[in-house]
């Protein structure tokens, strides 16, 4: 019993320390850029644009496929089930809840973790091994502002953009695919969707995806820079980044959903 309590205490303390260190890490990276002001933007602009290109633009084919597939499944299933109940007007609400509020942010986040979270952790881990981070310090270039911030910022922008794209493709594309097997008028589809979407959904979507981006890229960069110098540490850091990101993103999305669910019922 005591051993279990010890283990729980250790787990809680470790979790608290990791969260605190991660928070300080993110704070210092943003602080460095703000402190240096506009003169810091030119050297990091290239990295921000590259990050958006790799995380956002290059993920479009995969996101398109995922959005079409998941959108089709949900539109098809909801059409089939709701027509049995005779309440097809509820479809808009179901689509908004499942795709825009829940599935879109989660699937986009998982895709970004798999593609870019791993890439960032590996790249930064390799930079440690190749002593590039140390070289930056000897050149008086703060790695947190120069290496970490642009990756987090570019990642957040990309994730918000990708999630918006996912929603559009999942809803519109899903309708067209499902229309091949069932008769559903486009005007009816748009009408029920327009009724169900509230302005808060857009704000919530941006905040939720922005926060997921912050979580994913902070964890990836943090784990990457934790590599001390041996090449075998890089895959370990990458695996840790993926596991921690998935857990944190799911926990965050679950918390937001629970909060709004309880608020709606209250």
């Amino acid at each position: 019993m005591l051993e279990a309590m010890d283990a729980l205490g250790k787990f809680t303390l470790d979790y608290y320390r990791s969260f605190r260190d991660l928070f300080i890490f993110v704070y210092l990276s943003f602080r460095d850029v703000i402190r240096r002001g506009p003169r810091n933007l030119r050297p990091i602009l290239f990295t921000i644009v590259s990050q958006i290109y790799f995380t956002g633009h290059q993920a479009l084919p995969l996101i398109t496929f995922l959005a079409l597939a998941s959108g089709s499944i949900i539109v098809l299933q909801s059409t089939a089930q709701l027509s049995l109940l005779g309440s097809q007007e509820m479809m808009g609400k179901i689509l908004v809840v499942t795709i825009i509020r829940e599935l879109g942010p989660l699937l986009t986040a998982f895709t970004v973790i798999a593609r870019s979270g791993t890439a960032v952790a590996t790249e930064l881990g390799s930079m440690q091994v190749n002593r590039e981070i140390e070289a930056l310090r000897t050149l008086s270039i703060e790695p947190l502002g120069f290496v970490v911030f642009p990756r987090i910022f570019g990642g957040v922008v990309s994730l918000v953009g990708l999630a918006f794209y996912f929603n559009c493709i999942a809803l519109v594309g899903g309708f067209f695919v499902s229309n091949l097997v069932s008769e559903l008028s486009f005007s009816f589809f748009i009408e029920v969707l327009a009724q169900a979407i509230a302005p808060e959904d857009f704000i919530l979507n941006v905040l939720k995806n922005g926060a997921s981006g912050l979580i994913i890229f902070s964890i990836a960069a943090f784990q990457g820079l934790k590599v001390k110098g041996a090449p075998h540490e890089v895959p370990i850091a990458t695996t840790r980044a993926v596991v921690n990101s998935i857990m944190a993103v799911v926990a965050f999305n679950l918390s937001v959903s629970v909060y709004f669910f309880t608020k709606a019922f209250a």
Partner: protein
Amino acid sequence: MKRFPISQITLENVSFAYEGAGSVFSGLCHTFTPHDILFLQGPRGSGKNTLLRLLLGLEVPTAGQYLINGVAVNQLGHDEFTPFRLNIGYASDIGGLINNHTLYENFRLLLDYHDVGDPAERFDFIGGLFERFDLGGVKQLRPAFVSSTARKAAAVLRAFALRPEVLILDNPTQGMSAEHIPVLVDLIREHRTQHGLKYVIVSSDDLALLDLLGGRVARVTPQELRISPSLRSTGT
């Protein structure tokens, strides 16, 4: 970005130990003499590399003080140390170039980030350095796409990019092409006579370089740097 001139470098009772390892220095005292070329030598594990890391501010003494112009470096924040650090040129023994930048961008980054001096004049200077080492043809390539000797030369050259007053080189000739070594020696001499280079600290067992460059040998021990009394060669 402002740079502060460096007129005195002192280690005052410096002790240092890596976490979980034995002590490397215990009460090390030394004042570096300006206009001297110092070759740090000693067996593996004697602390040559650690001493360089202390001088660069990458490590902080566990006790004692590292002073530049009488100011304790370990009490300075990043911003306060930067004006000094911009006057310290450093090349590590391996690696150090930013791999997602071309060789030229590796130099340009330093100038853009710190916004030091007149950009046109600085870029001409960098172009001249590349030409001198015959790297003009590869300067627009990333480190992974050039030969290891070109990488090494570029990494060592970058230490000169800001025309520093203190030059710290860790095994500069290790992996360097034989024809680049005399060019490096000329470059160091030129910087000493024309560009205000005051301190040259080299960690190297390369006696040929020592003969070419001239300088004093400093045996690194935990308490002191045992400096050989005379110049090894006739280098200026």
